[in-house]
């Protein structure tokens, strides 16, 4: 077995930290993320708080500890990323398969619909959807699924174009295996590799876009600590308190880099023939 490349190891290490933070947030975080300490408003990093505790990364306008909010922010980031990518895949992959296997009408319908959805910038459509549904984590997942299914559908379709000509699939169909069984048992497992790559890259996309929407005030609800929401607060205090902006941005960037590195690694390990499809 080949040694794992440094980049992939780095990505996995960063994500391990993120996952541990999300799972054990109450144990790791030095403060309650919503504990306000107005007397210690906008304290710079390494300031001591009222009870003598250290604010490693400083505090925000309400005197909330930034370190703790970053740690709790991993929850929003992970939940929305997996929820969004998972829901998009659940909608998109069956539609892509349908486009590939159920004849020309299904093919045109799915492809035209996917093209349509992907020709509005994601953030614009998601903003409109979020303003209609209201800011909440569940609605964020819905908004992603409504748009990003198209990405999965396209890839699943491109893969089924190739798979549907393979002997074993033709044999199934000639032998009278039902269509749902053919797709589930014989086609889908052979797509899982490339779909995993798309899924991982979609996680990176979701982390970026979720914080973007939260930054614009239409993502995570205001009382939930989220990295994008923290950047939005930081923007108002940019002249006086740079630490509000620095930490959450670094957290977003590290997470996105980690997902991208893992995605690249999975892609490199895959059959090179699929690379044209994935690009």
């Amino acid at each position: 077995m080949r040694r794992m490349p440094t980049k992939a190891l780095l990505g996995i290490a960063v994500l391990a930290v993120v996952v541990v933070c999300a799972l054990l947030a109450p144990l790791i975080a030095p403060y309650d993320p919503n504990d306000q300490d107005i007397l210690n408003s906008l304290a710079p990093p390494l300031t001591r708080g009222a009870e003598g505790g250290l604010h490693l990364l400083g505090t925000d306008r309400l005197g909330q500890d930034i370190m703790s909010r970053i740690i709790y922010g991993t929850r929003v980031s992970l939940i929305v990323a997996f929820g969004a990518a998972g829901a998009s895949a659940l909608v998109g992959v069956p539609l892509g398969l349908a486009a590939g296997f159920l004849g020309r009408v299904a093919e045109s319908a799915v492809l035209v619909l996917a093209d349509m959805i992907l020709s509005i910038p994601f953030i614009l459509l998601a903003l409109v959807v979020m303003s209609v549904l209201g800011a909440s984590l569940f609605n964020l997942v819905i908004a992603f699924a409504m748009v990003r299914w198209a990405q999965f559908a396209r890839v699943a379709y491109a893969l089924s174009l190739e798979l549907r000509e393979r002997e074993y699939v033709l044999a199934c169909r000639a032998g009278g295996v039902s269509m749902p069984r053919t797709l589930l048992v014989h086609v889908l497992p052979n797509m899982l590799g490339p779909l995993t790559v798309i899924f991982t890259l979609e996680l990176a996309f979701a982390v970026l876009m979720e914080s973007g929407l939260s930054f614009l005030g239409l993502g995570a609800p205001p009382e939930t600590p989220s990295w994008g929401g923290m950047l939005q607060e930081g923007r108002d205090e940019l002249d006086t308190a740079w630490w509000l902006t620095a930490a959450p941005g670094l957290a977003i960037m590290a997470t996105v880099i980690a997902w991208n590195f893992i995605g690249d690694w999975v892609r490199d390990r895959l059959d090179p023939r699929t690379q044209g499809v994935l690009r």
Partner: protein
Amino acid sequence: MLTYLVRRSLLVVVTIWGVMTILFGLQHLSGDPTLLLLPSDATEEMRRTLLHQLGLDRSLPVQYLAFLGHTLTGNLGLSWKFNQPAFGIVASAFPATLELTGAALVLALAVAIPLGILAALHRDTWIDTMASSIAVLGQSMPVYWSGLLLILLFSTTLRLLPSMGAEGLAALILPAVTLGFNTMARIERITRASMLEVLGQDFIRTIRAKGMPEHLVLFRHGLRNAAVPIVSMVGLQLGGLLGGAVIIETVFAWPGVGRLAVNAVYARDFPLVHAACLVVTLTFCLVNMLVDVLCAGLNPQIRLE
């Protein structure tokens, strides 16, 4: 070629119809706009009058058909907030967005293509490592964050460049650099990959062996053959640029379509939201069509059908 253009144009029309239908659906999911537009003590009488004025008291199919008709004529009604034609407001903000995305794209290309070629020529050296590190940063830094960092450095600390507005060339620099960074990263990666593939081919070895000067090898034969994936990537990136502009314009208070759209969404000003989405989607579709034609021009092996 002509049939191709006709078919692509038809597809654009279908896309616009679909997008407008989705937006129409979302508007009607969002509930009664009069609750937002009228003061809370408004009478039922006033509410009805307003619904009638907005044409929202008709049956849904009638409203939908009227809406599609208005889309065709470019008359999307008056903005609920500004009480002016929504399309006109968007049209007057459009040049600012075009200026911003255009500047970002030019900057991105000016850095990405030389960097990509250098990285391909010096594969696996420190130049390549540096170029790919920059690309990783560009792909992973959220635009709203890199924007804030640049403001912090160049406006707040060094006081060199303005952080908001659109007065003069100086105000364009920060938003364009921020917006172009991500695009630059993606174009750099594809330039490197595409150049590596072309430079490894037999005809390059042949012309080098024949003693052709290296700059001709690189530019006349290398880059020319590597151009198609790069141009396609630029087309794909346009969606990212337009989406990025939505956020960047908000960060830098740039008076373009993106900021207008965000504010319209906040205010639930649906005619304005519709007009902004229509203009952005149409731009995206038309530029992509142009890119495909350009690719066919660059590589005679591509047949448009």
